[in-house]
């Protein structure tokens, strides 16, 4: 693959999937700035390994999985950054986040879900992956994906519906 073609392919992939990946990671980690950092890092790695990633059956899933793995490393790295003489290495996008905030009630309800349920929600609902692919990405059984999703939706309903109903004029 020529370098120019490779760049175009990646740019198109980024244009189509960056927002979805960001939203999926945001659902998983709950912090806008951190989600942006993680997604940037994951897309950077995708660019660096684009020949491989472009052949992945679901490149956006690869990006989100990489971002979530980096999230674990990020926290470890933070702990290692405690010594005074060690400088920081945080990633840095070009501009601060200026988009509209997510409904705080919905975000709070998502954050109350266990981490694995949030990951399933991120992949199944925000990346629109099917059960089999979600199971593959997370390394769990398809039946477990279904169970996590069902529990997550039930919890969200319990959390959100009473409040939503109160907002509706009778």
């Amino acid at each position, binding site marked *: 693959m020529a*370098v120019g073609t490779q*760049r175009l392919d*990646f*740019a198109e992939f*980024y*244009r189509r999937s*960056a*927002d979805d990946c*960001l*939203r999926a990671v*945001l*659902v998983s980690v709950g912090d*806008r*700035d*951190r989600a*942006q*950092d993680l*997604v*940037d890092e994951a*897309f*950077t*790695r*995708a*660019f*660096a390994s*684009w020949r491989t990633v472009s052949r992945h059956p679901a490149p956006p899933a690869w990006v989100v999985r990489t971002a979530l793995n980096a999230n674990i490393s990020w926290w470890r790295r933070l702990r290692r*950054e*405690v010594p*005074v*003489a*060690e*400088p*920081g*290495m*945080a*990633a*840095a*996008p*070009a*501009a*601060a*986040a*200026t*988009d*509209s*905030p*997510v*409904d705080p009630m*919905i*975000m709070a309800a*998502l954050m109350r879900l266990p981490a694995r349920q949030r990951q399933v*929600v991120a992949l199944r*609902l*925000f990346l629109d992956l099917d059960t089999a692919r979600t199971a593959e990405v997370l390394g769990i059984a398809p039946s477990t994906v279904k169970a996590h999703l069902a529990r997550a*939706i039930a919890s*969200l*309903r319990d959390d*959100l*519906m009473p409040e*939503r109903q109160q907002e509706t004029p009778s």
Partner: protein
Amino acid sequence: MNDDELTTMVCQSFTGVHTTTPVEQIASRGRAVRARRRIPALAGALAVVAAAALATTSLLPGTHRASPQPNAQLAAWTVTRQADGSIRVTIRELRNPAGLQSKLRADGVPASVTLTGQQNPSCRRYPGSPGLLRRVISPSFEVLPAPRQGPPANTPGEALSLVVVLLIHPSALPSGIGVQLATTFTMQLPIDSNGGVSKVAHGDVEHGLVYASPRCTG
């Protein structure tokens, strides 16, 4: 509300979330990652190439330039204040880090600037959030034509070098806080680009926030 309506409502609440990072910045960082990956395999060969290049250029008379090269006199680093008040720092080679530190301080940015691994032990890390650090400093890499010395090379590709660009926003710095920069350029000599822009020199930059003090930031 059924399950589909509920999940649609949840997803729609995120439609205002958009990435803020341009693809060019991702690509630039990705190229730097590629370059770093290739260092172990290329290090030996590049060291030889670098030594050969040094020996060659030292023998070439500088007055025989066939055409003016606009980048021939590039400084090792430059500091520019931009219209929006931000400071743009371009580092091609970290010569005289103390000079860069003084220049930044003169421009209102308390800073400790060193080579990687030689950080000032008097500096005390400021435990700000990554979001704060991101608002203060935006680092990126750029691949630029390398300054050429002597007559044009007989190689078909263009000489390239890796440059660190830091955009610092002094207004985002909390009072009494400075920045800590540490950079490394292990392969700064121009490398022929026959194989594409991923074959560039290796640079690295680490950055963080520190408490400003005379012993740390001067």
